[in-house]
């Protein structure tokens, strides 16, 4: 248990949907980071639900500038603090959703990694542009029906696989990259801690189910996050110093559950036939084999 355990740094009363995975993630992340932190946030669900003027849910300093640049705004903060003789003890966090990380924010993120700013970028991934109304993103998994990749007579829904963002981040040879999810809070917190302690940029890919976009019950959020790991749909791992051959699997299910158990709880996958599900199962099997289990 960390020393900040008692202090809530994201105040209650924010406007997130009931059962939002991001809220649970943020509560844990900020508790672990503690009050000596400064955050940037990209435009998106987290920003609109927590910063409506004249209120704010943030108990740490926060700046929101635009959609694609949380990492470059954070770069400026880090450089300013370093230059102006701060002791370097302040954590600098850069938050963005999957759109602000995988897609529009990717250039700024890559630049921040390459320049080796001491910034931890945390991607809260709910697998589509949820804030604008469930449009597909390069984070959207194969087979998911979204408003711009709808399922239909001629369409399976999203027809491309999810972009492996954490591996791409790690390939920048950054000191720390990891994946995490809200079903395993201790694991998430441990990874936040490691990311913040890393000497240089760090990346956390946090898988956060979205009842509104995935169309599942708001009481199934944690269960789905757990099933994603237990089925092998989302693999929990960490890599230090850009390690590519020996990434550490941090949560290996003893016996993988069939992906169907994960898919059937979400109406975004309701249109999938047995044949489709078999195809997805095969792809997950292949991926797990790649990861060594």
């Amino acid at each position, binding site marked *: 248990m960390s020393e900040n355990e008692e202090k809530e740094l994201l105040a209650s009363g924010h406007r997130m949907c009931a059962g939002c995975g991001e809220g649970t993630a943020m509560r844990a992340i900020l508790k672990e980071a503690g009050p000596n932190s400064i955050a940037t946030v990209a435009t998106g669900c987290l920003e609109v639900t927590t910063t409506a*003027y004249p209120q704010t849910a943030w108990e740490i*300093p926060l*700046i929101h500038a635009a959609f694609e640049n949380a990492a470059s705004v954070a770069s*400026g*903060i880090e450089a*300013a603090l370093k230059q*102006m003789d701060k002791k370097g003890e302040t954590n600098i966090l850069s938050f963005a959703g999957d759109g602000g990380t995988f897609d529009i924010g990717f250039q700024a993120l890559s*630049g921040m990694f390459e320049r080796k700013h001491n910034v931890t970028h945390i991607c809260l991934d709910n697998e589509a542009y949820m804030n604008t109304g469930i449009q597909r993103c390069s984070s959207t998994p194969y087979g998911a029906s979204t408003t711009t990749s709808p399922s239909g007579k001629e369409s399976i829904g999203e027809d491309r696989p999810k972009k492996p963002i954490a591996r791409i981040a790690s390939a920048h040879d950054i000191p720390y990259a990891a994946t995490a999810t809200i079903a395993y809070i201790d694991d998430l917190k441990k990874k936040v801690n490691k990311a913040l302690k890393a000497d240089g940029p760090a990346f956390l890919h946090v898988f956060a189910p979205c009842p509104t976009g995935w169309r599942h019950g708001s009481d199934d959020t944690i269960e789905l996050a757990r099933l994603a790991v237990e089925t092998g749909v989302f693999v929990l791992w960490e890599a230090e110093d850009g390690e590519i051959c020996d990434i550490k699997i941090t949560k290996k299910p003893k016996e993988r559950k069939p992906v169907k158990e994960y898919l059937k709880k979400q109406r975004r996958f309701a249109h999938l036939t047995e044949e489709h599900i078999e195809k997805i199962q095969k792809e997950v099997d292949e991926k797990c084999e790649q990861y060594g289990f």
Partner: protein
Amino acid sequence: MGEQKGLTIQGNMATALGAKLSRPDVIPAYPITPSTLFPEKISEYIADGELDASMIRVESEHSAMSACIGASASGARACTASASQGIALMHEMLFIAAGMRLPIVMAVGNRALSAPINIWADHQDSISSRDSGWLQFYAEKNQEGLDLMILAFRIAEDERVLLPAMVGIDGFVLTHTVEGVKAPAQEDVDDFLPPYEPPHGKLDPEEPMTFGSLGTPEYYQELKYDQTQAMENTPEIIDEIFDEFEERFGREYNRITPYKCEDADIILLTMGSMSGTARAAVDEMREEGEKVGLAKLTVFRPFPGDLLKEIAGDADGLAVVDRNISPGFGGAVFAESAGTFINENRSPLMKNFIVGLGGREIFKRNFKEMYEKTKEAVEAGEVKKPVEWINMDEDVMR
């Protein structure tokens, strides 16, 4: 008062020196012709231990302005340089810098916008960010580029202003042209420009605060009104700071500087490096007995309508010279000048001349032609063709 050092330098070096004397903390920058020498020079200053600052070699102009925003919100003095496509790419962030009331300063090497791609002098880049909420200054020569950088920091950071500012120097005509300048002594600039301390808070864990909130319809309009009021209150603060600068450093700046305007029937209104050529043309025409004057615009935003009325209100004709074009209307300075006189009982007849786009040379004879055309309109008592393009090549047009 320390001695001012005489130097012979290019325009970009002058703006970089102005920035250096202003002691910035963070300079995020991305190279783009014709302003590239600015980040090069800043890098050299840092490498040689002459400037204690952090330079961020960002991956785009969008990130340059984003990092300026992060640094400035953290309480740092932040500046950058850009031009043309770079300013277009950071367009989104210009509005955000102004909306957050962050006094960032940007040196602009004014250059045309694509297409066709063109790297030469033109005001379209910064003019296209007219509505972003930035103060805009334009230099006639390298000395002005140097001084205006220092002035821009001082004005932008004034508690009554708190708005970002850009200083334009024409691409190549100034950025790459060597001229003599006088550099103020560091201790005198330090006296004139104290360290920046944000008056309303910064990103500080000791006193947490949210920047860049969501402004719903219940609040947005009032917040924009406040920001606009800050801009509208700026002219007298600019005048006050220009006067103080003159007292300390002996160089006079005005939002608009009149030249031989007192008895002029026709006045040319210019901006940027073309003003020098226009002044020479005015001198020659005066020798020939023509009652012509020149008004040089140094501050484009906020637009100095009050001074324009004083200077040109009694003239018969005003020839507004624009190195930019808004297709479907005319030049930006023309639009602003026309708006300035809209409710006046008396207004000069106005003509708009589009010149010098994409680095096209502007000659003395061009100003004489503009004068003649304006004089014809005045004599006829009407303006048949409000917007005319000058120095066109008929062979290329064919």
